[in-house]
């Protein structure tokens, strides 16, 4: 029987299908464990636009108050906005109720420390120990603090942070024609204000009503953004942006209505950042080799980590990286704004580069080396991973292997990455090559091993 992970207590928080699985009692207990873990003090709580968000926020708030925390409710906001507000508010931590790009029946609790960073593995397992132990700090009536609301400071702070790193006047002067699809997510209101008011764009927006359900698949990928592409063509926009429900990921559409590979978006942003401030780059193992090429142009080093934002962020801290991200997932991490994935930084940098160079998106893209990519999922029992890794390595004897997340096999003509999904009983297969034929050969050989 296939095991569906309807509730997953994992690397990026506690995620599940709301109702039978992710229950208010569970959210409350985790809230209380979190409050005990950060030792009271102020905790920032916000959410994306999912229908279950309000309910879960009340449950988490109940648990935090019961642990003696003071709660600052920031309402519906993008995850990066919530994250960077945490240190500014002198909070001891923060929680976001968002399942990011997952379908609407899902929601999740994401945990942040006092610096506004995702909990690392050690923080997370300590929190889970407290939760499993279920001996929470119980505040008395005298120790129960208030809930305060602040819906305005976090977005103001976020926009100020981002704009510090671009030439705002140059962008404003161009009055770019921009298309936006905010998936009716947490970025809906802020993105319109940011593009219209802060950057003086001539904005053509769809799906910017946070009270409505997601009108498309929540994950912004080339195959889910047909409406954005159409909008770009119809309104003759110079660029199109698509966000995910919590506003950390960004997909981009060029002036012809072609949605870029997220790997290429990351590379365009890296090209811009490294030109201005060279330094180390951190990406995950599945990110395209185009990142190595771009970094090489500026003599910069690329570090690779297992998949999941928290791993990238941890490594970025360790090496003092100037830039990072996860290629296929979209969204860039620029630590000078905040050590988190942020679609606003990505939008600002792309517009700034267009203003500075005068080039179109497709012209900027043509600068990048071309790769052919494929990704796929195969049903899989995770218990077999060890033998699959051995078989793959045996069938590619010339490859350089990296076993830090499943296995990545690097060959002269390209690479293959096979890893178990963090959320479902699947393996994810990604491959990249310089030629279409090379890609087909790599994939065929890998599938042969996986299916035997």
């Amino acid at each position, binding site marked *: 029987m296939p095991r569906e992970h309807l509730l997953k207590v994992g690397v990026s928080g506690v995620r599940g*299908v*709301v*109702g*039978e699985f992710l*229950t*208010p*009692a569970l*959210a*409350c*207990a985790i*809230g*209380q464990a979190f409050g005990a873990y950060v030792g009271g003090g102020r905790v920032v709580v916000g959410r994306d636009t*999912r*229908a*279950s968000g*309000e*309910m*879960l926020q*009340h*449950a988490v*708030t*109940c*648990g935090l*108050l*019961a642990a003696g925390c003071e709660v600052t409710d920031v309402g519906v906001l993008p995850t990066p906005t919530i994250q960077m507000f945490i240190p500014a508010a002198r909070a001891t931590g923060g929680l976001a109720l968002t399942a990011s790009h997952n379908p*609407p*029946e899902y*929601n999740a609790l994401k945990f942040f420390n006092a610096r506004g960073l995702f909990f690392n593995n050690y923080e997370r397992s300590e929190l889970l120990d407290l939760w499993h132990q279920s001996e*929470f700090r*119980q*505040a*008395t*009536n*005298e*120790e*129960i603090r*208030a*809930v305060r609301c602040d819906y305005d400071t976090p977005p103001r702070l976020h926009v100020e942070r981002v704009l510090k790193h671009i030439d705002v006047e140059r962008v404003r002067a161009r009055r770019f024609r921009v298309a936006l699809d905010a998936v009716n997510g947490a970025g809906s209101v802020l993105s319109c204000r940011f593009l219209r008011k802060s950057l003086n764009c001539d904005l053509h927006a769809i799906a910017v009503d946070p009270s409505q*359900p997601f009108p498309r698949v929540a994950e912004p990928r080339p195959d889910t953004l047909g409406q954005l592409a159409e909008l770009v063509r119809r309104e003759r926009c110079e660029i199109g942006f698509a966000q995910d429900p919590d506003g950390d990921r960004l997909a981009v559409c060029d002036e012809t209505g072609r949605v870029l590979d997220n790997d290429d978006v990351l590379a365009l942003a890296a090209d811009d950042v490294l030109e201005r401030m060279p330094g180390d780059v951190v990406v995950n193992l599945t990110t395209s080799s185009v990142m190595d090429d771009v970094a090489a142009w500026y003599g910069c080093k690329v570090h690779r980590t297992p998949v999941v934002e928290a791993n990238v962020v941890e490594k970025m801290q360790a090496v003092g990286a100037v830039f990072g991200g996860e290629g296929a997932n979209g969204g860039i991490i620029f630590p000078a704004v905040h050590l988190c994935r942020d679609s606003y930084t990505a939008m600002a940098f792309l517009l700034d580069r267009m203003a500075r160079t005068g080039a179109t998106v497709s012209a900027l893209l043509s600068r990048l080396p071309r790769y052919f990519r494929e990704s796929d999922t195969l049903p899989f029992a995770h218990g077999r991973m060890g033998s699959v890794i051995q078989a793959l390595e045996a069938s590619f004897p010339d490859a350089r292997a990296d076993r830090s997340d499943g296995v990545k096999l690097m060959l002269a003509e390209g690479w293959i990455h096979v890893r178990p999904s963090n959320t479902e009983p699947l393996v994810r297969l990604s491959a990249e090559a310089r030629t279409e034929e090379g890609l087909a050969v790599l994939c065929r050989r890998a599938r042969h091993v996986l299916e035997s």
Partner: protein
Amino acid sequence: MRRDVPRSLRISQVGLRGVIGAGLTATHVLDFATAFGTFLESAGPVIIGRDPRASGVMIRHGVIAGLLACGHDVIDLGVVSTPIVQHAIRRLDASGGVSIGASHNSAEWNALKFFGPQGTYLSTAEAGELLDIYHLKKFHLVDWDRIGKLKTDSSALDLYLDELAGAFDFTALKRFKVVVDCCNGTSSLILRRMNERFGFSFILLNEKIEGVSFAHEPSTTERTVALQLAPLMRPLNADAGFLFDADSDRVAIATNEGVAVSEEMTLPVLADHQLSIGRGTLVITNLSTTALIDEVAGARGGKVVRVPVGRQAAMDALASFPAAEIAIAGEGTGAVMPPQFRFVYDGIAAMLSILTMLEERGRTLAELVAAYPRYSILKGQVPLISQRIPALLMDLQARYSDGVANVTDGLRVDWPGRWFHVRVSQTEPAVRIICEQRGQPPQALFDALVEHVRRFA
């Protein structure tokens, strides 16, 4: 049960009550709210309100989460009295309501009270079902797209006052000079609004809405009335003094002469008024209520129906008699159901009824109270040892076999002009001992009972 384990949580048919942190936790709140959301059948919204305790904020979030998760919309009235929640349930065709607050307990306590679609407390059977759902923990959590929405409503106080204004002659009543000890509770908000909106001149003590340090325990006992309210009556030359518990369902009286009156008097005085009007003959109360009610009812041709303590039992009784035969219902705690609104124990309405009596009878409050024979009641409690309760009750019954025994809720024994009631509390882990005598306090009997119960504990 070991005696050294501090117990402050009580989950029973009357709901749940406990000291926050030490007994009543967020987990209990979430589970009970979700059980209630599962229990409610109709699709209407659920009304919630709370008293000013700091922990009420925490509980509010838990209750909202549990109800939304079961697919109910929630209408939050904020800090309001329990009667305001009950009125709103009827007005808004809600499927039920929750009042968060520990009424007469000190600030560290909190509790949840649950109401059905008529705005009434649950009946015994309904409360039992709710408790079963809570214990089973199989809740009806809805899918993501059917989760409820939260709304707030700040009009509930004014709409409640409109209903009171329709039932009482505000123009006549506002001439009285009334002093009120609000005990830092919700009555302060109601009476302040009555001053503003209708020109009443309530003088309010402890009117600050306070979450942590109440000026004193918000209980309606004679002792509490004597603390601050009674001594101010003469200096202020007031006509009447009242004290409300935190959620304003109970009321106690101080006379214009500065005498603190037992909360037991509220029901007999109002029963007398209602029976004299001649609508209905039955007075529904519990076994722990003063015997003065029997004497007052007898003089007016009424009859007292006594049921076990707890509002569920009163709800059962109210449903078991034709409405036209019921004159009034209430408790010795100072909680009385006004005949105009026979679904809600309401201290504010009880106060207005007493003022109406003063108006109609043209007498002072001291004269009004003095017209009734004096009864003296003593109340005490002893920690509970459950396994010894049956033996204790049998022993007491044998020891006091010369009286008339009633065993429907613990043991009540009656003699002419004297009675006692020993029972297990539904809200605290304690045995309650109540003893009353016409005239002087029955101190010797009370002391003997307490001593006896203590020996069993």
